[in-house]
């Protein structure tokens, strides 16, 4: 009841308060760091476990174990549809040379995508693929693709960009149509792209697409 008894108690109270606050503050800082640690961890987890196997980026690198010998060409007919999307309001043209073709699994097929830069600036583009249905993603093997690299387009330049692929004969039986879709993106998002710049961020990355892209596979 006297001060001698009370003081030590209050002191312990203060010390444990400090300890609790320090612990909680540490958790806060760690969790903030965790968000940034997620950037490499997310890629690592996805590539190790394959839980993100359906995601768009999976078709971006050269396929391994391509089977192209003629004796494995099967008699099935697979319709492959091509799709093109331009990301953001930029003055480009982007379309596949054919909308759809019929191929047999094991057969090597080449098509192209036409792209034209109508703006008066040079641009560096990167195309991001996507495959529907997702189950077909790992069976669509790309031998050559414009999406493996960035593509530079001078002002007003047009070109046909090649795409060569094989469909793996192990494609599940219930799939008869595959849609291969590309979204073309501007990697340096320059401010002066015309004509419609309203929806383009005013400041952007002059970024490092070609350096980073392989980390995505």
């Amino acid at each position: 009841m006297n001060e001698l008894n009370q003081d030590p108690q209050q002191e312990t109270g203060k010390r444990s308060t400090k300890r609790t606050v320090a612990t909680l503050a540490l958790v806060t800082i760690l969790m903030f760091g965790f968000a940034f640690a997620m950037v490499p961890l997310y890629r690592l987890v996805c590539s190790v476990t394959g839980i993100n196997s359906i995601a768009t980026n999976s078709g971006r690198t050269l396929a391994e174990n391509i089977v192209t010998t003629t004796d494995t060409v099967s008699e099935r007919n697979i319709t492959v549809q091509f799709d093109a999307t331009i990301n953001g309001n930029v003055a480009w043209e982007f379309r596949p040379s054919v909308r759809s073709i019929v191929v047999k699994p094991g057969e090597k097929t080449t098509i192209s995508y036409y792209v034209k830069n109508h703006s008066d600036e040079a641009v560096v583009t990167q195309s991001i693929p996507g495959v529907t249905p997702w189950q077909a993603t790992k069976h669509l093997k790309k031998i050559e693709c414009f999406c493996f690299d960035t593509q530079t387009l001078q002002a007003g330049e047009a070109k046909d960009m090649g795409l060569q692929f094989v469909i793996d004969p192990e494609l599940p039986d219930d799939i008869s149509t595959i849609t291969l879709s590309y979204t073309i993106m501007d990697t340096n998002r320059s401010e002066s792209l015309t004509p419609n710049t309203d929806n383009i961020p005013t400041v952007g990355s002059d970024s490092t697409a070609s350096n980073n892209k392989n980390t995505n596979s």
Partner: protein
Amino acid sequence: MSTTTTHEDHHHAPPTGFGRWLFSTNHKDIGTMYLIFSLIMLFIGGGMAMLIRAELFYPGLQFLEPDLFNNLVTVHAIIMVFGVVMPAAAGMANWMVPLQIGAPDMALPRLNNLSFWLLPAAAILLMLSVIVPFFGGGTPVNTGWTLYPPLSIQSGMGMDLLIFTMHTLGISSILAAINIVTTIINMRAPGLTMMKLPLFIWAWLFTGILLIMIMPALAGGVTMLLFDRHFGTSFFDAAGGGDPVLFQHLFWFFGHPEVYVLLLPSIGVLGVIVPTFSRKPLFGYKSLVWGMGVLLLLGMVVWAHHQYTIGMSVAATNYFMIGTILISIPVGLMLFNFMLTMWRGAMTFETPMLFAIAIIVMFSFAGTTGVMLAVVPADLQYHDTYFVVAHFHYALIPGALFGLYAGVFFWLPKWTGHMYNETLGKIFFWWTTIGFNLTFFPQHFSGLAGMPRRIVDYSVQFVEFNQISSIGAFIFGLSHLLFVYIIIQTVRGGEKAADKPWEGAQIGTPGLEWTLSSPPPFHSFETPPTVK
């Protein structure tokens, strides 16, 4: 005892004037400011909801531009989550945590002042983000509250202000959470062991821990967004090697536990109200505490059920589906505990109890639609339809907001020293409950029929459902004028409240707040009470 008397010499009557509030370190004053702040934000966010419903009364464009409509949807959500429910719950914690655990104040009173005063700053930033597009600030923030890139990287200056709003709100709630958790752990009255704490305290302990775990992750996510917008990074930009889906993971790693941040304080309030008006001790107290702990752990690891359509592998979606369905076990346990508390109790139906019963009914309904949404093949159909809108409004309005209303009616006599007008309270309950159901029940049907959410226009076959919804929304919105009237009337006068206005308030719980006068003195529990 001599220390006690010298102590009283330091504290005279409450300071007067504006300084009392601006420099306040008193948990009761800060609690009051939190509650008033959230009430003001409720009207701003509610006003936006009224505009949205007015626009949707007819298909086609009435008076809102599509971008402005989407901006209103975005800001409505952010205000309701961060500006209304979280501050109101924090205000209630400020008032009730020290009173219920027998502490003289919060552990860190000056930090408490800071965490409140960051909120008006955040609110101003948020309003600026709405206003700048009208003065050449580019496209309004039209992403919805989830702020998904690439759209959020493309929108105008409002997005930057919104990111800073998120930072400010995040700092505010982290500081408040640290304060509350520290108070609960260190400042309990002698003899008040953890397993004797009122359920509200347990609920806030878990809420605080959740906030500390998740708010920094959101802060990190929006910081990366800011870097992508202005500093040339490509965290979320596919062209630069980033992945927009990563932001979705970061957002929902915060966003799903956030649901429990909103829900748990109200569950805590129910855990105090239901035994009081059933005049029986809370049934299964320990299981409720453990249930909330399990809810916290499960809630942290099921976030991707918001993202079934992003193209995860079947194994991953299965994991998230099963985890999500498992959550219905602790939540169901809570609801059954409340029902069994009422079982054979001597129940009376004052306004707080009416809200409590309505919450149990309507929140169960949200739980049912939640299980439907958790099932992957069904969700692919329901995703981004009004069915989702109906589901989360049924979860959050009864689960969070009505719980807070119940708490306001329950503790208003303690806070003000006056009884509220019971008749008006009951009228408010029925008015607001009917309005709420009229608004959101039809949205289940329009959603199942395929009406997409977050779009200013809709197909003509949905007209009837939308008109019922809009009429319900106006009824629901108007009812809150009565709510404010009841509060003002109670603050200004009315029947004098007893120290313990509710007969059953101390059944099965120490109920320390009821040992104080109504209203409690400005400085309470300077000598800690002893709990047997």
